């Protein structure tokens, strides 16, 4: 996972062969809309992201409604007949009862393990844990990273040096290593504690990105204007600079969450993550990998859920990146161009290209889209400093 910002077109850059007609079609889409509206519009246009959003919502609802939620002694029931920690009689040799033709769910759609626990309930509980860890890690790491990055980018000088050297120290230790060491000590305390710990070590990439963003934004005219108008540092940071850096932050928060899922499952697989009697997706796989030849369903279903969650988050992150990229523009199809030209000749304003046509040029964004969606990369910066910058340095590779 590399954190190096990806090269994208510089502002003012024009795509080769983009004519004025194409520009006018592209610009008319954003005329008279607020920033939020533009972002929302662009996000919903990204079919993959939209689909991922729906799929993720479905997974969340399914996981939390089916077996209920347990936090300490507080517990809610779900609509599913079994729970993850109670073994029942083995039916059908433990094989999954889910079938598509004819469609039937049966008593144990994902099968049972050797002691008779219902794998659907176990997987749902694991999904809950993974989702919860993902959200907590995302929130904590984003918060710390943003604060550290903002302070060090805004104040520069020795504050910056101290904070960035501290970041360097943390970044030198591979995430999986420090996660394992801390997880061994605190993993027994349960998934939320593990999540907090992961959040405490995963913020470094975010801090560097935010710092870079602040370093460039603080030199802009609107910051000078705010300062001249008498705004204090706090106000400048929170009201003037932060909203301009929010795109980078949100996009990287999603990528961080996707990385968090994989790291948590990896740690649980190694035995340093979520501990018994509770369960997590990585732990289910770890426990059952030797049984793959005899009971493959113990192995397939948790894997499918890990991949679905990570894939959804990655797609949403990609959609957000596109949505927040102000330079990004849609390439009209040849047909729409011709239509616009005809309309112009007739004295009418150019029409907005119709949505649709998934793989033709109409739905293709002109930007380094999707590039660097991996863990914390951002498409927001080029390589035009006069020396290598700290924020150009990527985080250590993902656990692999």
């Amino acid at each position, binding site marked *: 996972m590399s954190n190096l910002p990806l090269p994208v077109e510089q502002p003012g850059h024009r795509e080769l062969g983009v004519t004025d007609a194409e520009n006018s079609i592209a610009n008319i889409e954003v005329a008279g809309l607020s920033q939020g509206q533009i972002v929302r519009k662009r996000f919903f246009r990204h079919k993959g992201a939209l689909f991922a959003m729906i799929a993720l919502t479905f997974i969340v609802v399914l996981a939390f409604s089916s077996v209920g939620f347990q936090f300490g002694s507080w517990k809610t029931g779900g609509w599913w007949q079994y729970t993850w920690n109670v073994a029942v009689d083995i039916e059908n040799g433990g094989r999954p009862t889910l079938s598509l033709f004819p469609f039937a769910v049966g008593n144990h759609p994902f099968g049972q393990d050797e002691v008779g626990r219902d794998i659907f309930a176990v997987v749902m509980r694991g999904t809950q844990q993974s989702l919860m860890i993902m959200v907590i890690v995302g929130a904590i790491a984003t918060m710390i990273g943003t604060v550290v990055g903002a302070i060090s980018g805004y104040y520069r000088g020795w504050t910056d040096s101290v904070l960035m050297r501290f970041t360097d120290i943390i970044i030198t230790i591979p995430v999986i290593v*420090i996660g394992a060491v801390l997880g061994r000590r605190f993993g027994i305390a349960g998934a939320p504690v593990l999540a907090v710990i992961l959040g405490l070590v995963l913020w470094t990439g975010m801090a560097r990105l935010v710092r870079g963003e602040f370093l460039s934004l603080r030199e802009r005219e609107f910051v000078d204007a705010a300062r001249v108008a008498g705004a204090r540092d706090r106000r400048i940071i929170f009201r003037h600079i932060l909203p301009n850096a929010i795109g980078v932050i949100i996009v990287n928060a999603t990528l961080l969450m996707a990385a968090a899922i994989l790291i948590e499952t990896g740690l649980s*697989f190694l035995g340093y993550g979520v501990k018994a009697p509770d369960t997590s997706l990585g732990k289910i796989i770890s426990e059952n990998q030797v049984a793959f030849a005899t009971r493959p369903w113990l192995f397939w279903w948790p894997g499918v859920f890990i991949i679905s969650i990570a894939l959804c988050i990655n797609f949403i992150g990609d959609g957000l990146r596109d949505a927040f990229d102000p330079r990004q523009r849609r390439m009209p199809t040849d047909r729409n161009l011709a239509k616009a030209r005809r309309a112009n000749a007739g004295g009418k304003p150019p029409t907005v290209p119709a949505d649709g046509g998934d793989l033709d040029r109409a739905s293709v964004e002109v930007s380094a889209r999707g590039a660097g969606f991996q863990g914390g990369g951002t498409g927001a910066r080029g390589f035009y400093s006069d020396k290598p910058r700290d924020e150009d340095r990527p985080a250590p590779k993902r656990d692999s």
Partner: protein
Amino acid sequence: MATFVVRRLIASIFILLAATYLMYILTALSGDPLEDLRTSTAPNKQQLIEARTQLLHLDVPPYLRYFIWLGDLVGITGKGFWLGVTVQNQPVTVLLSQAAGSTLQLVVVANLTAIVLGLVIGITTALRQYSGYDYGVTFLSFLFFSLPIFWVAVLLKQYIAIGFNDFLDSPQIPIWIIPILAVISGLIWMSIIPRKGIQRVITFAVAAVATAGILFYMDASDWFSTPHIGIVGIVVTTLGIAFGVTAISTGLKKRRALYASLAVAALGIGLYYPFMYGLSYMLDLWTWIGLGVVTVGVSFAIGWFMGGNDRKPVARTAAITGFLVGAIISVDRFMLVWSQYANSGRIKGRPIATIGSATPGLEGSLWVHGVDFFTHLLLPTIALILISFATYTRYSRASLLEVMNQDYIRTARAKGLTERTVVVRHAFRNALIPIATIVAFDIGGIIGGAVITERVFGWTGMGQLFQNGLDHVDPNPVMAFFLVTGGLAIFFNLIADLVYAGLDPRIRVS
């Protein structure tokens, strides 16, 4: 430049010191190192506890014990470079040197393959932007990026290793699968090669027919039991290599380069039989590598003498051709021992290994050990490639796309340069600048990242050293592991900065 390096080095040493301190404390506090003894029922329990306390200085609190470890490390205590002992009283220095070899093999091979493959695929997708191929690779890289490696590893073990080994019992591709594979191959080639209309159909047909032909030949000649390239295959591939390398490196218009490459290819074909059935039996690892160097040198010389006025590019082309021709002939030589390897007593007809880094007690020549090495590396390498595939393809794609949109590329096109010159000489070189830095960073992080991979594939490497140490709450092996990974990360960070400055004249380090 020198001051920059020195300053960075000094800063790096302090960062490493702080990171090791943090790591030591965290590891030491991660549990109770005497736990197994406390719960044991041995009669001399008290003695054992005291012995271990003595051995590992457990009577000193961790924040001071670190300095004992550090003193041993830098040699103040007179033991030289000493990393302490483990709970079982084994010297960590010895363990580390054993573990590092196996891990380095894994990560170097896997990551080199991943980098080359990722770069090639990323660059081709950038050149074919918005094609079906591009979309396919984009989707796949999203998917691979979301895969947990331990999950992939189990699937690979089941379907690649066990499946392929089962397949080898009766190595025949069923007839009905061949047309399906042929159509798939045709579709892939059609989406990669940019043609329109009837030419696309021709591309598809040629690719599909060629695939089907090769598969039929494999079935007919029992290829999977006795794999080979053979003299015909060698002639075809070496000529293909000669033309291909020339086309990319200098362009086919440059006749001298083409003739030099063809001469190298002809030399390779001429030496094929003497090498396969004579010389190769006398080689060991180092003479084989030396022979490779000689091959490249001779090829370079051929290019140099045939180069005329423009020696350098011709010699370069000939040298690359020579390297590839030598490689393909070596591959054929490895294939020659395949059946011997697969049917040997240690392997028993199940060649693809799922665990470990080498077959214990295997005897044989360089070539047999080479095949053994490949079969053990195959699965972890595939797994690591799948995981890093996304990073490298997306990054090289974005980097090349960015460069291709620059004004100087338009200028190059405008002055009438061929597309090859524009892409290879003007675009590719500049796109390599950011890629080189990311590769340097990644190399720094790979050993630390391979813990899970090693665990699933049962390699006794650095990951195991780390895990064993952590399980016994024993900081010494953990710190040895961390010294290597952290040191490498910091060292390659520095290298990345220097590479960056060296490649891009706009950057000044100061």
